[in-house]
């Protein structure tokens, strides 16, 4: 005579494993890297010619060893204003002769001529500049260009830049290329 084993109640088992699961989900970080992306320029040979750029087309940003900013020979006390300055420099809405020039350029992706700024941002920092201010400057510049692209996309296509097609994105990027040149750092701060 075989007696049947009473069935174990495993209903609560799943509760326990759920608890473990949620615990691990909360404590472990599947750390996604976030950050500001940049492309470094290829190394230049020593005898390469310095391209001749009109002075008005360069926005000169200097960051010294005390993390102070000098933008086109003017002291800037708040790094957060840099975005507006950059946007103003690139778009030059009042056709100020000290800000960037514009040329007409044929954009293949959009199939038309667009007025494109010749402006270039030149960034120079000291070896003793802190990394946090460097990132803040890069952040402001990125924001400036992203906003310009967004504004153009809204105006032209009625959509934000992120919602454009790949082709359109390329075209808009050509209108507002993120042209940031970084000079070799100075070493007024002395130490490494």
């Amino acid at each position, binding site marked *: 005579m075989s007696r049947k084993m009473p069935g174990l109640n495993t209903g609560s088992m799943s509760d326990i494993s759920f608890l473990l699961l949620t615990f691990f989900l909360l404590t*472990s970080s*599947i750390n996604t*890297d976030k950050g500001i992306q940049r492309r470094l320029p290829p190394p230049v040979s020593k005898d390469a010619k310095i391209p001749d750029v009109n002075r008005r087309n360069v926005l000169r940003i200097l960051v010294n060893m005390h993390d102070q900013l000098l933008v086109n020979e003017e002291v800037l006390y708040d790094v957060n204003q840099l975005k507006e300055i950059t946007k103003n420099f690139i778009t030059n809405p009042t056709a100020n002769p000290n800000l960037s020039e514009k040329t007409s350029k044929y954009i293949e992706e959009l199939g038309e001529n667009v007025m494109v700024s010749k402006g270039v941002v030149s960034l120079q920092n000291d070896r003793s500049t802190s990394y946090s201010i460097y990132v803040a400057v890069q952040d402001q510049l990125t924001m400036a260009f992203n906003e310009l692209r967004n504004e153009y996309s809204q105006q032209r296509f009625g959509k934000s830049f992120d919602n454009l097609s790949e082709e359109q994105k390329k075209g808009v990027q050509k209108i507002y290329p993120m042209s940031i040149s970084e000079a070799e750092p100075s070493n007024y701060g002395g130490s490494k």
Partner: protein
Amino acid sequence: MARFKKEGKAGLPELNMSSMSDIIFMFLFFFMVISTMRETSLFVIIKIPQAMEVQKLEKKALVSSINIGKPNQNYIGKLGPEPRIQLNDQFAEPSDIIEFVEVEKQRRNDVDRTMITWSLKVDENVKMGIVTDVKQELRKASAFKVNYTARKKEVRK
């Protein structure tokens, strides 16, 4: 006519829950494996700076990190408080970057080699000098795609 015997209670039959726990355990192991996979212990202290316009890095397999910061408790006695570079799991000098780039490129297949993003994880108090040295070396090694790792800044209104 057949008589229907009335049983004590007419309820739903009990669901068999035993396989449920198996499924959840599978989930659990999956997450445990995933989250512990990419953990290189840091020898340097890194406080990531904040920024507004941060982008997510898309393909994690194509990211190689370069960590720069002060050595932590265990190493500060030996190495002093000057910021150091950590590549994978050892300290390095800027001159080691080229080799590091080559090794990292070898790990990927041909197609992906130019697509590698070099993630610079730098402490916010580090001076730009060492960062610039690293950048110059990266340029020499033709590793152009860099990412300055940053946290998303909370906007206070």
